[in-house]
């Protein structure tokens, strides 16, 4: 196992590697595959935090918990609400900030504020040839050259190993409330969520759990503002039944952590799929898939699907690609976890991987071949 303590050591380790490398932050997101394990935990620590500029810079292996604690101390947070994969994937370890960005992990608030990739301002990484590369910076507006920051976000260590990330953060609001509608069909629930998201009341979470027939709409802000908007939304959605309003902070945190971490599918067996689709298509796609259970987030744009082990891969892929979007299997065995790309896109991706990792040693087999 390699565990470099500095960026220079990281560059040495990759440059002198003779075989495949499996890159791991905290190892909580189960990248799979063979190869010598490279852990980023030695590259740890917050190097700069300016609350007045809403920016933080941290080494990639910094535990997420450390980042969140430092932000909380200043009344700020990571706005994109990254999911914790441990419950769903049965993994152990400590999630790292580098892992969050490398996998572009975003939670329910993504629908309102953007994904992890939207908050990533700058990266330093070591590519597959051992070269140290910097891109972006620590300012919010930066169009100096190509945006390799976006390319690295979500590339899961296939183009390079992050050594440092800088990112934008946001203030933590004073109050939160959730409107809970009950007994809606999937179609009605997604319609209700669309209406809420199409209102000026800044919905920051829009989920539907068919198992419990619960449809959840979250708003955040100052106390007076949350009260006002909760009332306005209640009126707007009156046609969907009476909405209960949850205002307790701890209860809200629990509700949304369960959505974020897909608590409903954590226990038991079965494959877990993550579908990214046009929100209004979601109920139809789900209805067409037999034996599957669904959890809707992002107003329907993100569907978590629990399928019987090893079954329905072709049907899931077909339903999603017919509508437009993609499906990734997050839990389950066998090949084909990542969505196949059309030939022209696949050629561009292969070209980029060949350029950034000419020897093909970084997480080979991950994200397609």
């Amino acid at each position, binding site marked *: 196992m390699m565990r470099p303590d500095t960026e220079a050591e990281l560059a040495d380790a990759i440059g002198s590697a003779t075989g495949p490398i499996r890159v791991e932050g905290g190892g909580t997101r189960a990248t799979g595959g063979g190869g010598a394990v490279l852990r980023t935990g030695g590259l740890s620590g917050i190097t700069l935090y*300016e609350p*007045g*500029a809403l*920016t933080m810079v941290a080494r990639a292996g910094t535990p997420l918990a450390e980042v969140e604690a430092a932000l909380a101390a*200043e009344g700020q947070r990571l706005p994109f609400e990254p999911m914790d994969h441990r419950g769903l994937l049965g993994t152990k370890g400590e999630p790292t900030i580098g892992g969050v960005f490398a996998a*572009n992990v*975003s939670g329910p608030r993504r629908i309102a504020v*953007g*994904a992890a*990739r*939207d908050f990533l301002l700058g990266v330093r990484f070591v*590519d597959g040839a051992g*070269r*140290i*590369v*910097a891109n972006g*910076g*620590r*300012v*919010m*507006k930066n*169009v*100096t*050259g190509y*945006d*390799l*920051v*976006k*390319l690295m*976000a*979500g*590339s899961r260590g296939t183009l390079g190993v992050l050594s440092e990330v800088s990112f934008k953060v946001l*203030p933590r*609001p004073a109050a939160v409330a959730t409107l809970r509608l009950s007994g809606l069909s999937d179609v009605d629930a997604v319609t209700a969520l*669309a209406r809420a998201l*199409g*209102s*000026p009341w800044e919905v920051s979470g829009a989920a539907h759990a068919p198992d419990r027939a619960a449809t959840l709409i979250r708003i955040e*802000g*100052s106390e*007076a*503002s949350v009260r*006002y908007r909760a009332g306005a939304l209640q009126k707007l959605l009156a046609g969907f039944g009476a909405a209960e309003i949850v205002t307790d902070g701890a209860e809200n945190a629990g509700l949304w952590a369960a959505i974020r971490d897909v608590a409903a599918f954590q226990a038991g067996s079965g494959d877990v799929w993550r579908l990214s*689709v*046009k*929100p*209004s298509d979601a109920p139809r796609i789900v209805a067409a898939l037999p034996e599957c259970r669904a959890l809707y987030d992002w107003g329907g*744009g993100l569907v978590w699907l629990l399928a019987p082990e090893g079954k329905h891969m072709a049907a899931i892929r077909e339903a999603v690609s017919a509508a437009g*979007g*993609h*499906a990734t299997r997050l839990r389950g065995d066998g090949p084909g976890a990542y969505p196949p790309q*059309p030939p*022209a*896109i696949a050629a*561009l*991706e292969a*070209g*980029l991987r060949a*350029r950034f990792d000419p020897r093909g040693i970084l997480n080979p087999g991950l*994200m397609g071949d």
Partner: protein
Amino acid sequence: MEMPPPDPAILARQPELVKRLSGALSAGAVISDPAETRAYECDALTAYRCAPLAVVLPSSTQEVAAVLRICHDMRVPVVPRGSGTSLAGGALPGGDCVVLGVARMTAVLETDYANRFIRVQAGRTNLSVTGAVEADGFFYAPDPSSQLACAIAGNIAMNSGGAHCLKYGVTTNNLLGVTLVLMDGTVTELGGAHLDAGGLDLLGLVCGSEGQLGVVTEATLRILPRPEGARPVLIGFDSSEVAGACVSDIIKAGVLPVAIEFMDRPCIRACEAFASAGYPDCEALLIVEVEGSEAEIDEQLGVILQIARRHDPVELRESGSEEESAAIWLGRKSAFGAMGQIGDYMCLDGTIPVSELPRVLRRISEMSEEFGLRVGNVFHAGDGNMHPLILYDANKPGDLETCEAFGAEILKLCVEVGGCLTGEHGVGVEKRDLMAHQYTPDDLEAQMAVKDVFDPKWLLNPAKVFPLAASEPRRVAAE
């Protein structure tokens, strides 16, 4: 500023090229008469001009693909052009280039309120995207100052920002998908009505690539429900440092305004003379705007005013009506025009960490003395994106060169304090040769490797973004 000399072999093939292009496009879509191609000799960076070999104005993705196939086949460089409002020379052609303008591609293809997106042809102007949805209570958030004229294609190429980025982000944060035609004519779809990438984030890579990776012909854009209301407050200070500290305190306090705009005294005076907005004569002025219902606005402005009072403002002006709001914005919106009344100016676009504002402003004013040129500062303070306007006299020999040298020093300062060369205008030709101040050779190599993959022959908008010396081996090898 240097451009590679036109390739005589390409110039010699012009008649054949025009014939093939004319055969592929509808009548009137190919311009080769030198009297007419001159209209495309520059963009909004008017200091540099060069008429292209030909101009094509295709009407569809298929026509764009046909043009690119022909140019690829004949090894002719192509310069994509939105509305030609680039301040960085992003659409400046070389003499052996075909300018591909998307001005005829302006249709709205799909509007979907349930899923909150609009799909448009990329030549549509920024403001007319909002125009297509505002009657239904929606808007498209990125709002560059040139939004009346600038095209979505150019916004995507430069990853344009605007005054309201602090809350809504820039183009890349509001772009869901594109139809991208590669240089060899291959048509690809990146993204769509869904939210994130299934593989590598090629959409994020293409946005801001300055027309060097492909030509965007259609775009899926996120639209947002319009807030119930918005109201600005004007705050004057007798020192730029204090104004900068106030910005930082507002952000730290947890209120998130949609815009925090900053103007310094030279700029305030110019605006007063030009637009009579009734601004106080002070050292620095902030315009802070918040959104929401009346009560929400009152609450947020209450917090902001409380913070502002702690910094001893010389002026605090709350807007009580739409007219008063318009008056507060009037001067800021006419700032560029006002400075233009005083003389020729160069507009810079560096970004700095907000905490460095006081230091950078002080240093700019010192440099202004050293170079003997006046500067006005007007910028988006909330996100640190500065727009120093350096005044010079185009008719005075050597003045433009002094101005460019001064500008380069300011941009280097931005990088030195932890910022960057350009926040929203792009590199183009203007900042191309400063890139080495921000990036190492390996950093630049990694970016150029991306272009190698998308455009192996380096035919799309060559001689931009990267220092000429750095890109030369690739451009030469491709010939």
